[in-house]
């Protein structure tokens, strides 16, 4: 899938998330333009996020920042 508002594929967005894991809301506001865009990709990105990241995966990194 490709996010028209972010001009970026979901794979590329998730790649950024893997490199610098963030909590979901922060991931959306940092790595996508969904908040100021059409919002259509948010549910699909949430599914990808939930299947790949447990709470511990990102809070540790985010808190360390």
């Amino acid at each position, binding site marked *: *899938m*490709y996010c*028209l*508002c972010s*001009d970026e*594929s979901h794979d590329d967005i998730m790649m950024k998330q893997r490199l610098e894991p963030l909590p979901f809301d922060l991931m959306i506001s940092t790595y996508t333009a969904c908040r100021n*865009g*059409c*919002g*259509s*990709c948010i549910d699909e990105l949430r599914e990808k996020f939930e299947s790949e990241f447990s709470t511990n995966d990102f809070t540790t990194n985010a808190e360390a920042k």
Partner: protein
Amino acid sequence: MLFPSIFARLEENRWNLGTDIRWQDFDSSRLTERQLHGIKMNAILEWSAMPTAEMFLRDNSQDADFSAFISIWFFEEQKHSLALLEYLRRFAPDFCPTEAELSAVRFSFDSAPALESLALHFCGEVRLNQWYRCACAYHTEPVIRQIYSILAKDEARHARAYLDYMRKALKADGTSASLAFAKIGVLMTNARLNKAMHPTNLHVNKALYPNDTVNGRLPDPEWLQRWLNDEIHFDGSWEKKVEQGILSNLSGLLGSDFSDAHALRTFHKNIARTAVTA
């Protein structure tokens, strides 16, 4: 059935023409007559959703799910036209299109293969999303900037809805859907075409030829090309975004990597050959 979830998604993002547009921020010093002419033409172009909706309902009479979605799509596209008309009515009434000018873009479209029309309008929405984003960047008057920004988001949502129906069609129709989607993708990413690659530039009624494109029936048929090239400057970088939006989503849909338009052309040739020999 996709309609309930798509309806909910669109409903959740619905904006109010009376209260969500910051009409009070209007700044007449940041607007030219040329720009007002463009707003008028876009208001008429959006009005052409009417014959398109009529075509979709006629050509998809067997598909209640998609037809139900078209009711919402039609409502939102007419609202786009109305937002632009309201802008002109408030701030530049001399530029308001006449009812005859609006009616001129309502004419009968010949029947077309439903899957191709679906893909065509997915590509059209992707392009329109970028046109409006570009128009938003070009304008400096705050109210019209806000309107184009809102319209761009609606068009992106519509593209996603069309894509959802394309995914559903693929499950039902397999090869014929792949063929139709790849064929239209090739057409809509063909940079060698001189005209802007949008449904409003296509000939849609043999009996009315050559007066059978929506753009050709605008009061100023040359306007769109001028608007794109000389006014909002929809250049190669914007065109690339359109191509990327179409190819990347078709990649995901058709399960093949279309890094450029050539890759999609090759894919289309291969499945067309396979379909003939099968």
